[in-house]
């Protein structure tokens, strides 16, 4: 027994990904559905668990490829079209670009439309689809339309109407994005989805702070014809309420070229501003 366990561990070292990769040799949901002899609910649960494990493992390893995530989620939802959490997971992790997701917004939209078709009274799905249009594709017209469709579902959360209006105006981008991610955090029980929302909210705060500081810096430069010597000087000159700090409490810094930077960019993987030139983000999740 001991010898067989040790041999198997050696085999696992040689082909560590084999189990998860092999699964897609059966890529047709119809075949899996038939083979399950009507117990397709159980098969859907198995495929869902594998989808989560697949993403979790690849994400943890910093993989840049999540090619099997879409087929696994499609298989799951075709076996059980009412498994809402699988659609929500797809909306969160199919559309974003690697390393944060599979970078397949088209597949994410396809999945969500399939979900809405099979669960027309589930307002969360309209919200998730609108979210993809708004944050990933920046297609505000479609986002507004989807939020509006969702707001007509009986029992839908009132914030869908607000999102529809804000997406239509495409006004207050930071504010809308913050509301969207907060709603995602509050409306999901999935740990990974909630952590993802927390990371985005942290990054949004950085983006907003850096934008505001950069504007203050521009105003200072126009007025004085020079760069401030420090962030403290900028804060005092522009009447900012104290020295601005990032969500971890670290003060922002300024480089020689007048760029506002965060102290630890690795802690804000989704931030698009305040990063050193040439910086490549590394996915890292924090405790909620």
């Amino acid at each position, binding site marked *: 027994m001991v010898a067989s366990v040790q041999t198997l561990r050696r085999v696992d070292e040689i082909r560590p990904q084999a189990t998860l990769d092999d699964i897609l040799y059966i890529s047709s949901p119809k075949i899996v559905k038939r083979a399950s002899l009507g117990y397709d*609910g159980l098969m859907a649960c198995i495929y869902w668990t594998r989808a989560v494990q697949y993403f979790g493992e690849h994400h943890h390893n910093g993989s840049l490829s999540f090619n099997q995530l879409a087929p696994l989620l499609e298989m799951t939802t075709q076996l059980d079209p009412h498994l809402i959490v699988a659609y929500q997971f797809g909306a969160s992790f199919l559309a974003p670009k690697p390393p944060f997701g599979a970078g397949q917004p088209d597949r994410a939209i396809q999945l969500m439309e399939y979900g809405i078709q099979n669960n027309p009274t589930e307002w969360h799905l309209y919200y998730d689809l609108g979210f993809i249009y708004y944050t990933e594709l920046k297609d505000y017209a479609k986002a507004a339309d989807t939020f509006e469709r969702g707001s007509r579902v009986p029992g839908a959360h009132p914030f869908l109407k607000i999102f529809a209006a804000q997406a239509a105006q495409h006004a207050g981008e930071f504010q809308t994005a913050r509301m969207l991610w907060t709603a995602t955090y509050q409306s999901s029980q999935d740990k990974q989805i909630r952590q993802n929302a927390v990371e985005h909210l942290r990054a949004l705060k950085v983006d907003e702070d850096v934008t505001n500081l950069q504007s203050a810096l521009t105003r200072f430069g126009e007025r004085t014809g020079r760069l401030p010597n420090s962030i403290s000087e900028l804060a005092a000159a522009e009447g900012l309420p104290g020295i601005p700090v990032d969500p971890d409490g670290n003060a922002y810094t300024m480089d020689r070229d007048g760029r506002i930077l965060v102290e630890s960019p690795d802690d804000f993987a989704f931030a698009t501003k305040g990063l050193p030139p040439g910086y490549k983000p590394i996915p890292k999740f924090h405790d909620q």
Partner: protein
Amino acid sequence: MTARIVHIASNTFREAVRDRVLYNLIAFAVLLSGSAILVGQISIDIERLVVINLGLTAVSLFGVVIAIFIGIGLVSKEIEKRTLYTVLSRPVRRWEFIVGKYFGLAGTLVVNTFFMAIGVFGALLYVAHKLTSSDAMIFVALYFIVLEFLIICALALLFSSFSSPLLSAVFAFSLFVIGSFAEDLRGFAGMAHGPTRWLATGAAYAVPNFSAFNVINLVAHGHPPSGQLILQNTLYALFYAGMALSGAVLIFDRRNLK
């Protein structure tokens, strides 16, 4: 007449309960329901769904295996041990023997299902910490599973009334698999033309439609099956099991036991 059938049924039940294979299968089914707890914990957000799906699937599949493997041996074992001659030498008619055996096996399966259901509810309570009103729908799924067993028991007896245990097992299990595809068979009949259409339609209605009894995923999502479905499935199971049992009785009545 009724007393004789009850007597044979109770003996069949006792014999089945004493059967070691039966105990192993129950233990395995309970173990599987227990493993639902483990699977539930690694499944994100769908622990309840996994426990219900896995638990009820285990109840259904192990019940089918028990029904087939005990059902096919009910007649042949009696012939092999020559106890059948002792029974039939008394004022017991052959049809009473078959019907008694059937009720004995059906009773065994109902008791098994009851114990396995306790395992499922225990696992559910462990994972969800409380039972909700929608969990009552699980009883409907369990009832449909029992109806499925009634048909399989009758089929196993039908096959065992004229063929060897091995062949009976193959026939019964094949019909279970084909019966799970009954609705696809009907879809195929709808697409065919001419004699093929009639043949496929006939085959689709001849094989038992087990897919109609599978509401496991429906109840796992908390959706109640309609009252009409419960009524029609009950009638269908009674008619189909009655038909298969009548076939078993007719064949066994004409069988030369010398």
